[in-house]
């Protein structure tokens, strides 16, 4: 990452907004579509102000139809545009799923490269904001299990900007999930100039010797907090995966070969979540280095509770600490 000189402290929402603006300024084929992304600037304000700058031709509030948002974006991408489509909440991605699964993911392969789908499907993602039902889901595994899609989840404002720019420039369809509880949780110095963070490369956020934590999105901070609280007793390495598909297996294997232990943290239900894939990768590629079983701290295998009880649901610092301790003591 080539970090430019001028930086400003911004939230993730602002960083994403900046990324969109700069890419739209640079490349006239970049356009935004989705529910309420226009004058309203999106329900989380990620596209705030872009309508005023680029007009209703390039920042388009669509009718209420997620299948169409994805399907039209595919057509736009095939015919030379670079659509950045927003699904208002990840809980409303399922109606867009068929188009992503049947077409976005397969068009390049189907046509042997004649037609390609350089689109981004953005959505606020995950829980922790006391939202209504269907507004706190973590559907990354559905997309990861779909060959032909890339899946990216940023963990901070700086990450968000660099990864989103890379996603927009990527020649393949990218599902870009934005942890909504990080949207305004903190500010970070972010370079004003454009920069990219390569897709497919993980980030070792904290080095350690005894155990590896694999996390992404909002769970990164929670994991880091757990690692820090344990700093006097356990040397924890924390990796931010950033791109979940294709995932950076080399970084994972390298770390676990060093530490011999791993815990994976995610918000999505445990059963068949991405944690399972990561655990299996470690099993397959670092078995002999393992001193303890790889464990998953994840959402329960239940629907996500309404706001009053959501704290019971998501992995928290305590649960992660407990698992780290148990694993090291194994």
């Amino acid at each position, binding site marked *: 990452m080539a970090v430019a000189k001028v930086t400003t402290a911004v939230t993730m929402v602002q960083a994403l907004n900046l990324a969109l603006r700069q890419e739209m300024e640079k490349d006239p084929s970049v356009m935004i579509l989705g*529910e*309420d992304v*226009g*004058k*309203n*600037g999106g*329900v989380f304000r990620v596209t705030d102000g872009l309508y005023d700058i680029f007009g209703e031709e390039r920042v388009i*509030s*669509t*009718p*209420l*139809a997620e*299948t*169409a948002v994805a399907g039209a974006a595919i057509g736009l991408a095939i015919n030379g545009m670079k659509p950045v489509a927003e699904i208002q909440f990840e*809980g*409303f991605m399922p*109606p867009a799923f068929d188009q992503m699964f049947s077409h976005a993911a397969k068009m390049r392969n189907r046509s042997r490269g004649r037609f390609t789908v350089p689109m981004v499907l953005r959505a606020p993602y995950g829980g922790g904001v*006391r*939202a*209504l*039902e*269907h*507004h706190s889901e973590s559907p990354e595994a559905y997309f990861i299990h779909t060959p032909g899609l890339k899946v990216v989840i940023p963990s901070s404002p700086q990450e968000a900007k660099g990864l989103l720019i890379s996603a927009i420039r990527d020649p393949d369809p990218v599902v870009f999930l934005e942890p909504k509880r990080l949207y305004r949780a903190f500010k970070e110095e972010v370079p004003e100039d454009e920069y990219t963070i390569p897709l497919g490369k993980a980030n070792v956020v904290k080095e350690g010797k005894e155990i590896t934590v694999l996390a992404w999105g909002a769970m990164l901070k929670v994991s880091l907090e757990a690692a820090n609280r344990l700093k006097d007793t356990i040397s924890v390495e924390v990796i931010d995966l950033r791109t979940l598909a294709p995932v950076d297996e080399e970084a994972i294997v390298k770390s676990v070969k060093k530490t011999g232990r791993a815990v994976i943290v995610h918000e999505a239900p*445990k*059963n068949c979540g991405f944690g399972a894939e990561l655990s299996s990768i470690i099993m397959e590629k670092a078995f002999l280095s393992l001193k303890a079983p790889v464990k998953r701290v994840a959402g*329960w*295998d*239940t*629907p996500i*509770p*309404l*706001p*009053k*009880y959501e704290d*019971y*649901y998501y992995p928290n610092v305590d649960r992660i600490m407990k698992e780290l301790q148990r694993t090291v003591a194994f």
Partner: protein
Amino acid sequence: MRKVLHNFSIEYLQVLDENGVCDESLKPPLSDDDVKKMYEAMVFARVFDETLLKLQREGRMYTFASLRGQEASQIGPAYALSADDWLVPSYRESGANLLKGTPPEVLYVYFAGDERGNSIPSPVKHLPVAVPVGTQTLHAVGIAWAAKMRGEKSAVLSFCGDGATSKGDFHEALNFAGVYKTPNVFMVINNGWAISLPRSKQTAAETLAQKAIAYGLRGIQVDGNDVFATYSAVKEALEFAYRGVPSVIECVTYRMSDHTTSDDAKKYRDPEEVELWRKRDPIDRLKKYMYAKGIMNKEYEEKVQQNSEKRISEAVKKAEAIQEQEPIDLFKYVYADMPLRLKEQYEELMS
């Protein structure tokens, strides 16, 4: 040969005009008592709404979708239902839900972020709040179809918004209803906005009622701020429904509040438009009619207001006194029987 194959038309119905003047030739057969009950339900809906907005601002509740301005679009239709008919609401039909029989404390519990608020007490026939826009129209078709199969005299009144008409689910639901002649009445509440998208940008169709034509259904547009029109159109549609003819009813009304408590409508709409609609208030309109008709006086008006406030403050008390759910309740309703893995996860949570 170039010839006209088929002609279609869409009608508009208004019974009470903006000044509360009633077109007696169209007035549905409602007794003064009925009219009072409808008025009371509209006031109750509004007071419920105002109370919840206040409590939400105080942080005692989570996101809430106000129904202000849409009282006639909810109470007229719900009043037309029999106990055997089903109500399939979206998230904005608190008024209809209350009239259908869900106690206000239950609804409040839902908006306070607790699943028990979606546990509609038996035998009240209405589904829980549906958040994914438009999806509930298909449930309405399935429920109606089941009733028809069993030969029950039971129809299903479902609600969705102008935004929902753009969803594939809405389309597939109307088409199924047409093919299977299910006893459905599809209310389309055109309140002018789908969050920030005005009706004019939701679809290029001149009316939403005409969407019925695509499925061979009955379609009509009504003045959604006129409780006689909404009642009458639904009553008529229910009669058709029992005989296997589904209908679409577009209610033209207005969302007076922000979309929800998370929204700020000032970002995208003109306050003048809101002002315009304030003059078309559905409760004021009915009140004018009732005063003119002599079935309303100041005393009654105040009493209705006070009773509503009292009933709601009692409901809130009751709701806030509800015991916390137990952590086991997170796991208990996923399946009829709790699988091993959920038992283990519960233990892990408690450890």
